[in-house]
């Protein structure tokens, strides 16, 4: 898979042109400060088909593969990481629904999300740890033709803005995924305020107090929720890796422009050997992250989804984004710390991506488990 198809190259170019045309630096810096969701950009992205490229065409998706979503998100994040992360999470719940939801649910919700009318989110965690998948605190009990849901989910992306949540609930002895519309009585949102990064994507705790939804809101089979959540979050790590890859590229581009122009001690910064070696290290890390991210997406598109590889890609690309943005700031010197030069935001967004869905230790647990297998 060492070449993208002509179609994928065209998608990349389209995403790049879109980002270049739509993303204005000053406006974005203000949005980020205000913690505003980039509504106009999101609507336009949906219009142009950049949301849910790997979801079925029947429901207004792109009918393409994960690799197509990867190049799209990479290019948008490369131009602006915070907007890219917001778009990366926009269809979070829909992507999960698309895998296991009933036709009725998919018909009712997917087009809305993919046409830019509604945001969505998966609500899987209940603890402080990133990447937590729990179904203890939130319970769903069947009462007549309805599910009655109680408890609280934590750190839910798009919390407060989403039109629906795919909630991992305890049902009997097992767990299930249930779609809960945001306007159901008894659902409340506790915003968690500003974060280090990803500030155009609001984060909230979502509490359920005797929230009633129809039995038909069950996503997939009852009792399979945990397995579904695991599979979905693994797949979603490919998209997180793509966002991190784009973030790394974005910092790298800005740094490169700067070191070629900035002169100190009578030479351009790019002419110092230490700068050059830093740049070489960054280039290598970006290349490796791109390869593993593309491979994880390609493997998934070939129908051989590999959760371990998804963890590896997420961990590697996020580390790269951190290291590249940190060194980009360093090469910018004092300017790197200033909002105006944007690499400080790359760094904050990179760290946020690294922690979301589980920092390195969480991914290593997953990778090691698979690498070692069973010990007798």
């Amino acid at each position, binding site marked *: 898979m060492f070449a993208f198809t002509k179609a994928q190259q065209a998608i990349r170019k389209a995403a790049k042109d879109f980002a270049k045309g739509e993303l204005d630096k000053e406006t974005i810096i203000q949005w980020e400060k205000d913690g505003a969701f980039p509504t106009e950009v999101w609507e336009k992205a949906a219009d142009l088909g950049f949301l849910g490229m790997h979801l079925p065409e029947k429901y207004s998706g792109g009918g393409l593969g994960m690799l197509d979503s990867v190049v799209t998100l990479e290019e948008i994040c490369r131009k602006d990481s915070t907007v890219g992360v917001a778009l990366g999470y926009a269809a979070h719940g829909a992507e999960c629904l698309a895998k296991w939801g009933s036709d009725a649910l998919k018909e009712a919700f997917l087009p809305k999300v993919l046409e830019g009318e509604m945001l969505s989110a998966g609500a899987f965690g209940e603890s*402080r*740890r990133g990447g937590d998948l729990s179904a203890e605190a939130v319970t769903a009990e069947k009462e007549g033709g309805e599910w009655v849901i109680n408890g609280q989910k934590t750190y839910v992306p798009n919390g407060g803005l989403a039109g629906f949540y795919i909630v991992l609930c305890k049902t009997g002895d097992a767990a299930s995924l249930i779609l809960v519309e945001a306007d159901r009585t008894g659902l409340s949102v506790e915003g968690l305020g500003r*974060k280090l990064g990803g500030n155009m994507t609001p984060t909230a705790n979502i509490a359920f107090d005797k929230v009633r939804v129809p039995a038909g809101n069950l996503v997939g089979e009852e009792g399979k929720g945990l397995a579904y959540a695991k599979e979905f979050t693994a797949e979603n790590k490919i998209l997180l890796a793509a966002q991190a890859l784009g973030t790394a590229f974005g910092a790298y581009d800005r740094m490169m422009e700067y070191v070629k122009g900035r002169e*100190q*001690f009578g030479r351009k910064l790019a002419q110092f050997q230490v700068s050059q070696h830093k740049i070489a290290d960054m280039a290598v890390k970006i290349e490796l992250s791109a390869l593993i991210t593309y491979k994880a997406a390609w493997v998934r598109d070939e129908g051989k989804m590999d959760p371990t590889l998804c963890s590896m890609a997420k961990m590697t690309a996020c580390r790269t984004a951190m290291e590249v943005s*940190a060194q980009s700031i*360093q090469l910018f010197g004092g300017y790197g710390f200033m*909002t105006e030069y944007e690499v400080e935001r790359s760094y904050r967004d990179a760290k946020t991506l690294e922690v979301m869905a589980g920092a*390195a*230790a969480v991914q290593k647990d997953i990778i090691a488990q698979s690498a070692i297998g069973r010990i007798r």
Partner: protein
Amino acid sequence: MGVLKYTEDHERFRLQVREYMEKEVLPHTMEWEEAHIVPKEAWRKMGEAGYLCPCVSKEYGGPGLDFLYSVIITEEMAAVGQAGLAAMLHSDIVVPYINTYGTEEQKKKYLPGCVSGAIITAVAMTEPGAGSDVGGLEATAEEDGDEIVINGVKTFISNGINCDLVVLAARNPEIADKHAGVSLYLVEDGTPGFTRGKHLDKMGMHSQDTAELFFSNCRIPKENILGQKGHGFLMLMEKLQQERLMSAIANVAGAETALKWAVAYAKEAIVDGKPLSKSQAVKFKLAEMATDINLNRAFLDNLINDHMAGKDVTAQTMMSKYASSEMMNLQISDIMDLFGEYGLLESSPVARGFRDQRITTIFAGTTEIMKTIIAKSLGL
């Protein structure tokens, strides 16, 4: 441990400073962060409490205390992550220029105010085109009768908005030599031709008022030259040892605080039904952090002793500044991983710590400048 000779007086003083931080500084942290500046009143309160300029002698209104008092204040302020109320910058970086090189008149005129907090100081060295390359500074100072006319732009000036007095580096345009033309000048707030530029938005240290300063035909009396004419560069180099030492002190103290958060959190946070501290990986990570901090601490405390004894420890100070700042950068990232998603929230101390510390490998000389000079000290 115990390299530094802290007396009971020192220890008592530390407790007082700590209590002051808890009562007078910590409760205002968020307010100052949001305002992007610390009110001048807070500086005056610090002065009243006796926590500004411990080195200034009684003759000029100061307490005339030893350097360990500065160390204590710096450590205690770093422990609460205070960036805007930059006592260290004022007391131990800027005021020493006046204290060491000022004339009797200058000292009498300015030092009492520096001690009381009525005069907040800033040092203006960096320019848009002269960051690491201090020798490249372009601001000019030309004599005109009894006056000196200053023109130029300074940037990234901490206390840039609040400052009442600026120690400014500028060059005599008639002298071609990069270094020999540089002198230091004292410029008071309100001098015609001296204006503030943008209050700069930055990743961290939000309560710190960082700004551009503009000098446009700004006339100051000749007696406002600080130290010997043409010795500006030498004075800057001489005082940079203490500036970098202060940075290292703040870094190590900051790292010690962050480790405390991490250890407390690891014990308290329950993940998968057990405390995070039961994880072997977490234990090892915290053990590594404690080791690195202790190595940095031991080296630093020795340097403080040498510095107090008047030794030239330029290169060692750079090692300490560079090592401690790089350590901090790595550690706060690892601590964020430990805290997980809740560490990302601005309501947690980790997020602010993460944002604030990124500048430490850059200001007071980048890691690359430190390494360049360390290499020189090795004869390379």
